[in-house]
């Protein structure tokens, strides 16, 4: 499989804090790649750096093209969409129009009517058609996270970076979320997801990379990585390891 995203030596520094140091990650086409790590390890910063939302050093290639240093809207228009961990929908606009906004600004030059039509389809697909016409402000947090995915999909990306979009779902609801992300991947969209729900990571990811203090400490299949002593120590904690029988 060819690499869709190739990140080499990515480093980000915030004032006195080295948030990412020399991180290299390659995502193959059609892969679901999990990115995990303790809070503050640099997970979100990685997505921010790749999508151009924060300044970084190092090289980021998307489909063979150097996108290092490009502003976020240009990265998005190239087909690399992302969601935000802190969701900020336009609260007074309907859910439908929030998604239509994602379609409207993805660089395809759609009309508002076309964007809305596409948004209808996307909402149907993510299971939010029933709330399409309510203001985004009335959604629960879990629905807002799902709305982020819908906005990303509306841009018709070839790769999607998902930042904790399943937070706030209980074990039963996670099943539906897994099915959605599987269907996205089945369409050939490469997915990189930051996640703290191990049920999602182990049930979904082809490969998992782990960040700790801004450095890559593990890279492998979910089974191997979640059993890795350094990962248990830094991230999972012993209680998880005991429950999972690792």
């Amino acid at each position, binding site marked *: 499989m060819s690499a869709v995203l190739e990140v080499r030596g990515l480093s980000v520094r915030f004032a006195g804090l080295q948030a990412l140091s020399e991180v290299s990650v390659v995502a193959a086409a059609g892969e679901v790649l999990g990115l995990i790590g303790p*809070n*503050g*390890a640099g997970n979100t910063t990685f997505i921010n750096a790749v999508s151009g939302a924060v300044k970084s050093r190092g090289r980021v290639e998307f489909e063979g093209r150097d996108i290092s240093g490009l502003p976020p809207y240009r990265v998005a228009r190239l087909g690399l969409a992302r969601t935000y*961990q802190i969701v900020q929908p336009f609260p007074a606009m309907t859910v439908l129009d929030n998604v239509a906004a994602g379609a409207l600004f993805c660089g395809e030059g759609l009309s508002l009517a076309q964007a809305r039509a596409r948004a209808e389809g996307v909402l149907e697909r993510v299971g939010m058609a029933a709330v399409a016409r309510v203001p985004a402000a*009335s959604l*629960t947090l879990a*629905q807002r996270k799902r709305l982020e995915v819908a906005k990303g999909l509306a841009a018709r990306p070839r790769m999607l970076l998902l930042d904790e979009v399943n*937070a706030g779902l209980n074990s039963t609801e996670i099943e539906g979320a897994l099915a959605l992300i599987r269907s996205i991947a089945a369409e050939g969209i490469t997915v990189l997801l930051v996640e703290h729900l191990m049920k999602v990571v182990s049930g979904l990811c082809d490969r998992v990379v782990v960040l700790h203090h801004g450095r890559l400490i593990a890279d492998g299949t979910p089974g191997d990585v979640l059993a890795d002593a350094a990962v248990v120590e830094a991230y999972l904690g012993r209680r*998880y390891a005991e429950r999972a029988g690792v």
Partner: protein
Amino acid sequence: MRGWRGPPTPALPTRVRETRVGAKRGKVFWFFSSEKNFFVVFRLLLEISSLEAGYGSVQVLWGVDLQMSPGIACLIGANGVGKTTLLRTLSGLLPARAGTIRFCGESLEALRADEILARGVAHVPEGRRLFASLSVEDNLLMGAYQTRSGAKRGLARAYDLFPRLKERRRQDAATLSGGEQQMCAIARGLMSEPRLLLIDELSLGLAPRLVDELAASLRGLPTLGTSVLLVEQDVATALDLAAEGFVLDRGVVTLSGPASALATDARVREAYLGI
């Protein structure tokens, strides 16, 4: 009425003048005195009857009945059944449309949010809601705005509970990682030394190890006089941490009892634990 489980602990001290109401209604169980103060422990910390609330034309709570003893309790249920709405109604962020809320024998349903806070109910909202552009320490101090004298003690306690926040106390709260923000939000809720802390989605966005650490910190709160009502999607963790649990379904409490019993209840296991 359900019986008290376990021996009386000196949790939730309240001054004796507040007990009159409860005593009249036969809700007071133990009086005991320390050197200076005369304390009383309520058998029921929180008593909610037929509580209704909603937003505009949408009614969310359809007559919630709930009785919580001092200690840690959890509220579980699917997304959209009204868990957050219930917490918002308890803390006065949303007006109750009908029903009563009694907290340590006092009625809360007609009070404003600041009056409810003054009576000892603090709320850690979903999504943290820190004041961006304020430092971590200033965020914490906002949690103690009603008690100048307690602020210093509150800060010491917060930093003791979450040493990471002490390291970052001068930093803008917006620059914290997700987990640190959650710590800051919980610490801010504790700054007023509440008798009841409402926590909406403790584990949201937190690494498994950090969830364990936070749970361990919360476990100690009842002995410091703070009970906790926790909304949590990680039902296994919630039932492990809590002494009692309530299941909310479409705006009413459908099941309640000791957390250990709920954890083995077939309905709970199927609906929320995915077993």
